[in-house]
């Protein structure tokens, strides 16, 4: 539980935020320059000029009136900045061990545990300049979680990297949430990522909170695109592998609800590309761009797409020139981006019944 009432003078506006967050993961969205990074830095204690009050689980770490200002090292708040900021003079294991004060045996055990959780156990002796962007980001994440902070701040991890690498981090963040059970505040501009990871969302604009609440209520496509023109509405599909056909490299996936890990009741088995090492019973995460979700009026015959199923329209919103249609199949929700002309021709309206078609190869593997 985090309670904030803070003020920080920035150029050209002031960051003025009043928030009470109770979620396991809070997604923060906002245009660039809206104060997202500054907000994280205030919470981490890296902005000395911040004023106001802030408490985490009842512990006050900032109260400018009572002159309480816990330095960052006493807040137990982990921080992963946009660039991984690994210590270049230390190898991966030493980077991860940096914040540990335990005896060597215990430290080694915890470092190994964190590296294993993020699947980078083999990188221990490498130096930061030899790592790929995705590897470096996972090391930064391991370094932040190994000290078991009371809160983890993630500033748009991998924003500087290409889409594929960026998305690869998502399954690891889900693991940190579910296995390390560390509450997170996560700055992102990917709505699919936010929906898969967060239970609460905050929208910041020009230093002020524009909307806050449960992620599904807050992140309406219209609000998100008005805040961030380059926001994406991809579908994140997370599930348990039901079968793998190695010969034709496809797998069947029983979907789970990414945000909770609960079975998505009533959702169809999905046909997705298999990858090396994928085994029956394992969990896997895929991404489908909203442009790749095709909508059909009636049940198609003779179609090459392997994923075809009936769905009910639950929302239709116009974004700039296109229309984002939200649909539901059982407990699974889909977002499809179509043209306004298609909406007219297919007579797409809330509560209408349609068919969804998705090609196997429209599923990008994330992890």
């Amino acid at each position, binding site marked *: 539980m985090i309670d904030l009432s803070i003020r920080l003078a920035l150029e050209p506006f002031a960051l003025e935020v009043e928030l009470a967050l109770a979620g396991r993961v809070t997604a923060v969205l906002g245009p660039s320059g809206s104060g997202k990074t500054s907000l994280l830095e205030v919470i981490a204690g*890296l902005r000395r000029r911040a004023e106001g009050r802030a408490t985490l689980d009842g512990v006050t770490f900032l109260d400018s009136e009572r002159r309480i200002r816990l330095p960052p090292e006493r807040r137990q708040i982990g*921080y992963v900045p946009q660039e991984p*900021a690994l210590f270049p003079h230390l190898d991966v294991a030493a980077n991860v061990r940096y914040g540990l004060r335990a005896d060597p045996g215990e430290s080694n055990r915890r470092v190994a545990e964190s590296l294993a959780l993020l699947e980078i156990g083999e990188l221990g002796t490498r130096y930061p300049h030899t790592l790929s962007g995705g590897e470096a980001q996972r090391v930064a994440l391991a370094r932040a979680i190994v000290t078991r902070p009371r809160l983890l701040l993630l500033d748009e991890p991998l924003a500087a990297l290409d889409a594929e690498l960026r998305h690869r981090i998502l399954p690891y963040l889900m693991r940190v949430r579910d296995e390390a059970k560390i509450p997170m505040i996560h700055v992102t501009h990917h709505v699919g990522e936010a929906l898969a990871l967060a239970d609460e969302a905050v929208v910041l604009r020009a230093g002020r909170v524009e909307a806050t609440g449960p992620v599904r209520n807050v992140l309406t496509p219209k609000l998100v695109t008005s805040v961030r023109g380059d926001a994406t509405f991809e579908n994140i599909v997370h599930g348990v592998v039901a079968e793998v056909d190695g010969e034709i490299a496809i797998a069947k996936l029983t979907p789970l609800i990414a945000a909770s890990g609960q079975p998505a009741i009533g959702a169809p088995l999905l046909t997705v590309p298999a990858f090396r090492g994928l085994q029956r019973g394992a969990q896997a995460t895929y991404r489908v761009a909203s442009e790749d979700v095709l909508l059909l009026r009636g049940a198609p015959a003779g179609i090459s797409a392997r994923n075809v199923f009936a769905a009910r329209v639950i929302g239709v919103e116009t974004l700039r020139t296109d229309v984002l249609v939200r649909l539901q199949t059982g407990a699974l929700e889909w977002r499809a981006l179509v043209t306004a002309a298609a909406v007219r021709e297919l007579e797409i309206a809330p509560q209408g019944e349609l068919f969804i078609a998705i090609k196997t190869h429209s599923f990008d593997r994330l992890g």
Partner: protein
Amino acid sequence: MIEADDISILGLSLQVALTATLAILPIGVALAWLLAGWRGRGRIVLESLLTLPLVLPPTAIGIVLLMLLSEDSAFGRALSGAGVEIMFTWKAAALASAVMSLPLLVRSARTAFEDVDPRLLGVARTLGDGPWRVFRRVALPLAWRGIAAGTLLAFCRALGEFGATILIAGNIPGRTQTLALAIFHRSQVGRDGDALRLVALTCFVALAAVYATERLGRRHGIDRLAR
């Protein structure tokens, strides 16, 4: 051939320059760290004061030191009251060298500290380190090459110091006569050959130090590219 006299002059010079360099090392590194992180208005004042020895004639600095150490000043009286004798001893030569070479060390070390990504310092704080530990575990290891290069430069400057030294240490053979002073003295009395021998000795020591500086600087540059 090098004479015993030359060796004792070289020995005294090295003693003076090393003492001066070691004395300013902690002060210079602390000042550099302070300047690198300071955004306040006082920064420019401190920086300007530190630049003075670089831009003023060394004799001007010598006069200031002379006044400071003389019995006319409270500081000078306090020193002699405590039984500390500095004027016209090798310690005065070391003091003059220290003052003259401090700016070189501070500039080089400050640049090295400024090159350290501030995000690394911030992350280190969130990982549980106070400012002193962050300095020791992150800033110093990342800036050490720049500090080492600055230290060598300062050492070279100390070795060649003349103007301020002659004012507060005099030119006493065997006591305060360093290489720079001895070269001046020998050439004044027409012992040009003897002076040239000392020039050769000075060249040797200075070249060795500059070579070491260059090596460190180059490795520093390559490291930064690799990052």
